[in-house]
């Protein structure tokens, strides 16, 4: 039985991986929902550029407007907030779950992007997601953080959201 976490080959009947200690469940491989590969035209999402302030101090918080969602979300970012899609069978879980906003249909990865808090700014980094993260229409290079500004548009797969800073 091959461990879905570390790929180590365990003898059948083992209940935990000998190598990484994770629970081996027989049905695990069949229930993991892989992230859908989307085939779409990037022109569908026109870019925009309005430049707000990049200053984000310790008392600030984020208002996140997800397109097609009813209410804006208030987010108090931690040192690092991982956005993604919760999947009970996945070894890693996001801090903020986008499943209620149609993350699966919109091609959001289980671990998609992270917002990090620095001294006076916020940065966003794509965590090697399947369908990419766009900031104001520009695709981010995985693992390279970019500074976020008030009013920025981010896109995770096809899920679009606007970020506003509030103090």
């Amino acid at each position, binding site marked *: 039985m091959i461990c879905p976490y570390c790929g180590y080959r365990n*003898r059948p009947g083992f209940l935990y991986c000998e190598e990484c*200690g994770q629970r081996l469940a027989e049905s695990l491989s069949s229930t993991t929902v892989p992230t859908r590969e989307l085939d779409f035209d990037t022109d569908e999402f026109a870019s925009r550029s309005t430049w707000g302030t990049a200053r984000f101090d310790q008392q600030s918080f984020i208002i996140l407007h997800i397109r097609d969602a009813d209410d804006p979300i208030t987010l108090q970012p931690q040192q690092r907030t991982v956005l993604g899609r919760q999947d009970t069978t996945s070894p890693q879980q996001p801090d903020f779950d986008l499943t209620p906003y149609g993350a699966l249909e919109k091609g959001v990865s289980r671990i998609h992007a992270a917002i990090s808090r620095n001294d006076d700014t916020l940065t966003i980094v794509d965590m090697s997601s399947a369908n990419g993260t766009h900031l104001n229409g520009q695709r981010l290079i995985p693992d390279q953080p970019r500074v976020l500004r008030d009013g920025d548009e981010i896109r995770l797969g096809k899920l679009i959201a606007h970020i506003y800073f509030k103090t």
Partner: protein
Amino acid sequence: MPVDFDPYIILGISPDAPADEIKAAYRRIARRLHPDVNRAPGAGVQFQDITVAHDLLTDAMQRRRYDDSQQSKDPNNLYFSLRVMPSKRSIMPLSEPQVLYLLAEILPDPRAQEGQHKRESRLNLTLVLDHSNSMSGTRLDRVKVAAHQIIDQLTPEDVFSVVSFNDHAEVVIPATTVTEKSALKARISLMMASGGTEIYKGLAAGVEQNRKYLAPRLVNHVILLTDGNTYGDQDRCLALAREVTREGISISAMGLGQEWNDKFLDELASLTGGSSAYINSTNSVVKFLNDHVRNLSNIFAERAHLSIAPDPDIRLESAFKLSPNPQPLSVDEGNIPLGSLQLNRTISVLLQFEMPAELQFGFRSIARLVASGDVLANRLQKYQVLSDFSVEITPEPQQEDPPAAILDALGKLTLYRMQERAQEALENGDVREATRRLENLATRLLELGEPELAQQARAEAQQVAYTYNLTDKGRKALKYQTRTLILGASVEIGDE
């Protein structure tokens, strides 16, 4: 010939079975246990028992004598039971070997909890205390305090002795009933630290004191406390441990500080069914020893053993005692010593078997388990109980989760195995492998809410990467604390 077990139960027949049924039952079991077909040490032990049972029951006169002796049996006698559960009840045959777990639990008689049966066990306790140079100062002071408090716990019914050792052994308190407590304490206060550490001398002198009052109705126990390594006499210590186990004495070994040899003390204790422990701070010595002695006075049955005879095509790969004191067990022993069965806690042992490839469909036996021990409250203490365990081999096994008790225990046991595997890799000179395994261990510990231990594992991973070696402290902490986690998992089993 006198037997100290029930020959009907051992052969799995009723007390009115006719002679041909006895023979048939014997042959059926012998086919699984005979040394020609089954090389498992447990099978050898059990084969002797069924042979004795068969010889007794097929001799009309001996059988009548045995039956008569059972008439006069005290109905108030207390017993223990053996409960076995598998990780899977139905199994699909595979083209390769597969692993099956059994959890074996020995449970004291529920009647023992009731008032009229509740009787505290009487102790025949020997302390073997290291007073070598390295013990000087606070260490020896704390040990003295611990010994004083142990004396306070004892009753005039108990027997107590103390031996101190460095390069040679000295009897501080010869075996005596505990009547003059202050006089005993005064002798302990006189101990001084000096010299080296030679464990065999201390152990031999301690055993000699314990033997003076050795009796089947008592808890005959030696506690060895040391902070150092012994050189050249380890094999003699182990030989002595084997010898005293047969006599009915158990040894617990406690290591203080970082310098002692954990492999040696583990082996010494587990040979006798005793426990081994790591006392990492001098301050916890007092509490630790006191708790240990308190558990000794709460014993239902002593000298518990388990013999495991897997079927000839099945292999017993490992055995681990989860409760009351987590400890690896040696599967090379035919009759594995498990120590004491306490009144309020089960002894639970997790067994790992390897089943062959291409199993035939149908119900089949896995292993025959026999638990034995001396019930202290009974007039004739020896008692044995048997479980012959089977599972179903089927093309469509039930989709069920393994029992929570097995999952919990195994989850924690896997952590213990991971630190073991890291050390193995290191011993084979594979530093990268060892580092990776320690890092995996740290990750799992963190996920399971053990941040301090996780931190320690991570620190050791770095240590290994730089120095190609673990620190003594970190190695012992990881080994004994991952073991303690197992206890956390198994206590819940006992509480249900």
